[in-house]
């Protein structure tokens, strides 16, 4: 287990539930300031719920409850003794890309600046350069530079997902949550996204939910394994895949469904 001196997120005694149905219990872990942390585990083990807890996106779901302490850079994001938490501002800092590229039915350009424009983060005169920079960062600029004002939904699935990354990155997040971002992509698009994730991991904490163990192994520095309503094991990727300490982890990594 790692120490939490250089942690972006620290979770202490966290319990997550929907009404009376517990999802995860007694979660204690920390996520480092740099690098990719993968969350793996069987379907229904609470991977996405844990991820969405980190930017409080579960708040929109009825009956969601979170107890314990979730700290982002030392600040509690659920309870605050000094006043209400500014959740929208928290989410501006923690970007997120969903499993399916959810683009708004408008142009490529307007999708990239969607958050920027509404949140008034930058002057409009900067938008063009931001669009170019972010589309270059996600390796999409060369493919779309001549059709920025065409509908975003005309792009392929892989391009749409990279555009979703660009939209998130345009708001300059300082941490990134990724919920199976390559689940519905072809190998070529997956490779492009994985390269991007690795590059982003050198600059900020990237937390990746994935079903693909090979992907977790390729991209991550740290792996969190969830099973049966708790964090079964977490630690460095090499240790986890080479010699997992828990039997459940060994079985899962060996290809068994727990």
């Amino acid at each position: 287990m790692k120490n939490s001196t250089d942690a972006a997120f620290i979770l202490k005694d966290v319990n997550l539930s929907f009404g009376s149905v517990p999802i995860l219990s007694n979660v204690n872990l920390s996520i480092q300031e740099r690098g990719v942390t993968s969350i793996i585990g069987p379907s229904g083990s609470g991977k996405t719920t844990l991820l969405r807890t980190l930017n409080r996106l579960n708040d929109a779901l009825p009956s969601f409850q979170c107890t314990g302490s979730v700290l982002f850079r030392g600040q509690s994001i659920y309870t605050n003794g000094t006043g209400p938490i500014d959740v929208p501002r928290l989410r501006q800092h923690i970007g997120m890309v969903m499993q399916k590229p959810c683009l708004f039915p408008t142009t490529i350009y307007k999708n990239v600046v969607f958050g920027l424009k509404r949140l008034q983060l930058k002057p409009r005169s900067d938008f063009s350069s931001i669009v170019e920079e972010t589309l270059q960062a996600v390796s999409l600029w060369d493919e779309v530079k001549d059709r920025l004002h065409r509908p975003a939904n005309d792009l392929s699935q892989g391009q749409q997902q990279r555009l979703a990354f660009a939209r998130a990155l345009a708001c300059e997040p300082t941490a990134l949550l990724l919920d199976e971002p390559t689940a519905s992509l072809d190998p070529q698009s997956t490779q492009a996204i994985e390269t991007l994730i690795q590059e982003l991991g050198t600059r900020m904490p990237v937390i990746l939910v994935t079903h693909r163990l090979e992907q977790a192994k390729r991209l991550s520095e740290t792996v969190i394994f969830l099973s049966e309503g708790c964090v079964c094991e977490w630690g460095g990727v090499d240790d986890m895949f080479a010699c997992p300490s828990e039997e459940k982890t060994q079985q899962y990594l060996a290809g068994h469904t727990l």
Partner: protein
Amino acid sequence: MIAARRRTVMGTLLHIFVGVMTIVSVTLLVSIVAMMVAKGATALTWEFVSQPSKSFGAEGGIRSQILGTLLLTLGAGFVSLPLALGTALYQTEYLAQRLKAVSMRFIYALNGVPTILFGLFGYMVFGIYLGLGVSWLSGVLILAMMILPTMIVSIREAIEAIPARYREAGLALGMTQAQLIRAVIVPQSLAGIITGMLLGLARATGETAAIMFTATTFSGVDLPQAINEPVTTLQTHILLLSQEAIHSSATDAVWGAALMLMVLVFCFSLGAFVVRSRLRFAA
């Protein structure tokens, strides 16, 4: 074997029953439309539509009545749209789940209130208590109240049909609820909002009872020069002319006015259908 045969017979009988019921229903509706067209088409000339009525409607056209109906209807739409949109947004975005269900039951109940009661309420409150009298403004206000439930339900359904992932995409970018409403919810439910408004207008166009108390006079009125003057409408014109049915010219005019009213309602309904089809949110 016998049970299987019985199921087959029951299935066939049910099929025949629902088929006959459908034919009866459609025949009744088509008959009404066919009768309107057959009897009204001859009267519905450009002169009839473009000239004001004379001799208490027995002669001349229905220009004032068409414009009066449109003035009332569009005025009601103008008043009720922001109210309906605000209510629907409050219900879907801010109200707790339990209160949402209670408020919706109330709205549905309001939708079932007989329109004559709206008229009576409007007459008492707007006409007498607020001193607006029988006027265009009273009619607009009471029609706006009357079509409000229809519009709220339609707009709310459009908002609730927005896929959750669009809300989440907005929230994940750090938008506040107000920014989400402005940037995501209203634009994405625009087709439903317009559809709801048009359906409300269609209902207002056909309404007679409520405006008889509050807005219209049966004769001697042209277009109102101010909002506190009464208007004349196709609905009340039809009522007036049908009581003059012994005159053949009045009989022709009543069918012409009826067909015109049906065309107006049909235009709003068709508009709602077209908007819903063309602007439907690509989920």
